[in-house]
C-alpha cells in the first residue's frame, strides 16, 4: 500500500464520503423536492394564502336612518382599503340570510334617526355584527370598524373641548400593519430547517442501516464518528442555502424588513441547524427503518414545532402544562431569537439566554447520540 500521511488520508476519506452523500441527495428526486421545493412552496403558501390579515372584506349595510351622518360614515368605511360594501340591505331579517349565504363577513346596523339622536342626546348607536365562524378575523374586523368610527367621532368633536377624556390609542409595534407574513416567516424558517436537518439526516442514516450498507461501513476503517459527520455535513450546507432562500424570498416578495444583524441571524440559524441535525442523529440511533425515522421526525418534531413553539398559537395563552412542555422544544427558543433579530432588531445582548439554551440542548443531543451510537450491529 502506498504511504500517505495520516491526516491527508483521513481528509481524502472524509471528502470521498461527502461526495457520495451528495450523489445520494441529487439523485433522489423526492429528497431534492423536500430540500428545495418545500421551503419555497411553504413560504409562498404562508405568505399569500394562509393569512389572517383583512383586506377588502365584504360587508353589508343596514341603514335605518339614511341621513347625512350615516352616509358619511359609510363613505369613510367604503373608502378604506380594508372593506368593500357588498350590499345594502333593507330589513333586519335580511341579516341572518345574508350571513347564511356567506356573502359578507360583517353587517353594520345603524339605528333609526342616527343623526338626530347624535345631536339631541350626543349619543347614537350603530351595531356591528360579525361572522365569528372565524373568530380571529371577526375580531380584527370589529376592531378596524371601531377604529374608523372613533376617528370620525374625533373629527366631529374637534371643536369641542372636553375636560377629562381618556382615549386609549393602541399602536402595534414591530409589525404595525399586522402583516401575518411577518409572523409566519420565522415560523416557516424554523419548520423548514428542522424538517430538512432532522428528518433528512435521520432518513439518510437509517437508509444505510436498512439497505445493509451500514454493515459494510462498520467493517471498514472508517470510524462511526466520521460516518455521522460525513452524513450531516451536506445537510448543514444545504440547510444554510435554504435559510438564505427563505430570507431572500421574504425580503423581496413580502418586503419583510430584517431589522437586526444579518450575520447574527446567520450564526443563530447555523446553531439551530446543528441542534436539528443532532436531533436527527438521535432519531436515527433509535429507529431501524427509514419509515420509522420519518414517522418519528414528523410526529415527534414537526407537530410540537407547529403546535407548541408559539409559531401559530401564542404560548402565553396555552394551559400551564403545555407552557412548561414548550420549554423543551428547541424551535420555541429559535423562534424567539429570530423574531427578535428580524422584527425587533435586537442584538445578542437580548437573546443570549435563548442562544445558550439552544447551545445546551445541542450539546445534550450530540452527547446522547454519541452514547447511543452503536459500533456493532446490536
Amino acid at each position: 500500500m502506498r504511504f500517505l500521511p495520516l491526516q491527508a488520508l483521513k481528509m481524502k476519506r472524509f471528502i470521498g464520503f461527502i461526495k457520495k452523500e451528495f450523489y445520494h441527495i441529487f439523485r433522489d428526486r423526492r429528497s431534492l423536492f423536500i430540500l428545495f421545493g418545500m421551503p419555497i412552496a411553504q413560504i409562498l403558501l404562508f405568505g399569500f394564502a394562509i393569512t389572517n390579515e383583512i383586506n377588502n372584506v365584504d360587508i353589508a349595510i343596514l341603514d335605518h336612518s339614511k341621513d347625512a351622518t350615516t352616509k358619511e360614515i359609510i363613505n369613510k368605511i367604503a373608502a378604506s382599503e380594508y372593506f368593500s360594501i357588498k350590499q345594502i340591505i333593507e330589513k333586519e331579517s335580511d341579516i341572518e340570510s345574508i350571513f347564511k349565504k356567506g356573502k359578507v363577513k360583517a353587517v353594520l346596523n345603524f339605528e333609526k334617526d342616527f343623526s338626530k339622536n347624535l345631536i339631541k342626546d350626543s349619543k347614537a348607536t350603530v351595531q356591528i355584527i360579525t361572522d365569528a365562524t372565524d373568530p380571529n378575523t371577526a375580531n380584527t374586523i370589529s376592531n378596524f370598524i371601531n377604529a374608523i368610527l372613533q376617528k370620525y367621532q374625533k373629527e366631529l368633536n374637534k371643536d369641542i373641548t372636553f375636560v377629562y377624556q381618556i382615549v386609549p390609542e393602541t399602536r402595534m409595534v414591530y409589525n404595525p400593519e399586522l402583516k401575518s407574513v411577518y409572523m409566519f416567516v420565522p415560523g416557516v424558517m424554523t419548520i423548514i430547517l428542522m424538517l430538512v436537518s432532522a428528518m433528512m439526516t435521520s432518513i439518510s442514516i437509517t437508509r444505510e442501516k436498512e439497505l445493509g450498507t451500514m454493515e459494510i461501513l462498520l467493517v471498514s476503517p472508517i470510524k462511526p464518528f466520521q460516518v455521522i459527520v460525513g452524513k450531516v455535513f451536506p445537510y448543514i450546507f444545504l440547510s444554510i442555502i435554504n435559510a438564505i432562500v427563505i430570507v431572500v424570498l421574504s425580503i423581496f416578495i413580502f418586503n419583510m424588513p430584517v431589522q437586526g444583524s444579518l450575520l447574527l441571524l446567520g450564526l443563530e440559524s447555523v446553531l439551530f441547524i446543528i441542534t436539528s441535525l443532532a436531533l436527527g442523529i438521535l432519531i436515527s440511533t433509535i429507529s431501524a427503518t427509514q419509515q420509522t425515522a420519518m414517522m418519528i421526525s414528523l410526529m415527534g418534531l414537526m407537530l410540537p414545532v407547529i403546535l407548541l413553539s408559539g409559531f401559530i398559537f401564542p404560548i402565553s395563552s396555552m394551559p400551564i402544562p403545555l407552557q412548561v412542555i414548550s420549554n423543551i422544544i428547541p424551535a420555541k427558543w429559535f423562534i424567539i431569537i429570530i423574531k427578535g433579530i428580524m422584527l425587533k432588531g435586537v442584538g445578542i445582548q437580548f437573546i443570549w439566554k435563548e442562544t445558550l439554551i439552544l447551545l445546551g440542548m445541542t450539546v445534550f443531543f450530540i452527547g446522547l447520540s454519541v452514547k447511543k451510537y452503536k459500533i456493532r450491529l446490536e
Partner: protein
Amino acid sequence: MGISVKHISKSYKNVKALQDISFEVKPGELFGLIGPDGAGKTTLFRILTTLLIANEGTATVAGFDVLHDYKSIRKHVGYMPGKFSLYQDLTIEENLEFFATIFGTTIEENYDLIKDIYVQIEPFKDRRAGKLSGGMKQKLALCCALIHKPKVLFLDEPTTGVDPVSRKEFWEMLKRLQEKDITILVSTPYMDEAALCDRIALIQDGEILQIDTPEAIVKHYPKQIYNVRANNMYQLINNLNAYKYNHSVYPFGEFIHYTDSREDFEPADLVAYLESKNLLHIEIEKTEATIEDTFMELAK
C-alpha cells in the same frame, strides 16, 4: 494468520443461533460453511467480522482478536454480506471508488487484484448498481470487498440468487484469488459448490456436524447408495418410504437415492418388491455418495 474459532456460542433471546463452534481456517485456504438457511452461518460471519459479540468463546481473524482488536480486523478483512449491500443509486465505478477511498486506497493501486472480475463489468461502469443483474451485482460486490487487498475475505452466500453460469464463474474467481494468498471463508446453501472448497464444515441448527475436505467427507459415507428410477416417481418414493428395510430415501435429480438398512442387501429383492407394487421400468444402480447425501445422513 487465518481464522481460529474456539467454542463460540451465541443466542438471541431464547434462540440458540450457534452452539460451541470451533474450527480453524489455515492461511490461504478456501474454507466453506455448508448448511441450510437458518443454520447460523450469517451469525458466525457477523461475529468474525466484529459486527456481533459472541456470548461465549473466542475467535481470531488474521491474528487479531474479534473482541479486543476489532479495529485492526476492520482494516484487514473484506466482507460481502448475504444481502446485496452497495449503494444502488451510485454507478459501478462510483461504488468502487467510494470503497477504495474509505479503505484509504485507490482503484489503480489494487487493480491487478480485481482486474479479472472488473473487466467483466467495466463496460457497464456508468450504470447504477441498482440496475444490474444478480450476477453483475455479485461481481461488483466482490470487487468492492477486494479493493483494499484484504488478508481475509468473508463471503456470506455470495451465489444465492445468481444464475448457474455466473455461479460457476464466481467460483473460478475465488480459486484465482486464493492463489493471491487471500484466506477465504465462504458460506453457501448449495451442496454442489462445497466440492470446490479446500475444506468444508457442515453446519446445521447452530452446530457443526463435520469438518473435512470434500473428498474425505464423501469417502466416509457409511453406506452404498443406489440410484433408483421407475415410471412413476411419486409412487416410487411412497413405496420406498413404506419399505421396511429402507435406511434413507431422498429425491436426487432424476433419481431417488436409496440406502438399505441390511448388510447383505440384494437389489433384486427391491426390484421384486417394487414390481409387486405395479411399478414399471425399474432401474437400480450403484452410485457414489455426494456431499448432500452426507449432509442428509448427518442431519438425520
